[in-house]
């Protein structure tokens, strides 16, 4: 069964993606959605911007999916990540894993999101209600984002 890592400039259609996970031998399906929160580190977030180094990120993302398939007994694993400007509550990343048994589905899903956050060249800029904004983890003083 096809497994994939993709980017989307459009809103992520979770219901449609979830349908793709159907498989007669898949007794367990675990999904993770990362959504835009209205706050971070005590500041009110009004929207978020995601930028990716698409070519390298796609390769690295696919490697993570392949590792998940190799190290866990799962049937399929998919990941879609948004780019561009997102509003509060929008889905920034969706991961879906199906497996015969739940343990492998949970472990693989968590592996994918943990590795994605560590390794895949995607960057997040938060825009605050103060009018400030900042690239997460990129400021030399991380809790004091640069002014626009």
């Amino acid at each position: 069964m096809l497994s994939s890592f993709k980017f989307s400039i459009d809103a992520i259609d979770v219901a449609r993606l979830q349908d793709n996970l159907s498989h007669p031998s898949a007794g367990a399906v675990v999904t993770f959605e990362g959504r835009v929160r209205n706050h971070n580190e005590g500041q009110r977030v009004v929207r978020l911007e995601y930028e990716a180094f698409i070519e390298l990120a796609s390769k690295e993302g696919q490697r993570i999916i392949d590792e998940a398939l190799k190290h866990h007994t799962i049937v399929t694993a998919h990941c879609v990540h948004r780019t561009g400007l997102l509003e509060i509550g929008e889905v920034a990343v969706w991961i879906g894993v199906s497996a015969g048994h739940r343990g492998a589905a949970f472990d693989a899903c968590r592996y994918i999101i943990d590795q994605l956050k560590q390794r895949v060249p995607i960057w997040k800029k938060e825009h605050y209600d103060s009018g400030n904004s900042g690239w997460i983890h990129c400021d030399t003083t991380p809790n004091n984002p640069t002014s626009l």
Partner: protein
Amino acid sequence: MLTLHLHYFAIFREQAGKPSEKHSTHASTAAELYTELQQLYDFKLPPSQVKVAINQEFCDWQQRLESGDHVAFIPPVAGG
């Protein structure tokens, strides 16, 4: 003298004021090139927090550059 294609993302794109450029340099490694660009564009991130990709693959800071290489410096990632 090498001619490279440089690609800037996120905070580097903003600090350089452009997403990419052709760049001629005497730098022979990615490490030397980053030091040069730090001075040119006032990049504040120390190399320890940055990764480097040549021709769309992560690589070592000591990798030797070749003319025509596409080089990108990767600020700390924050996907998900």
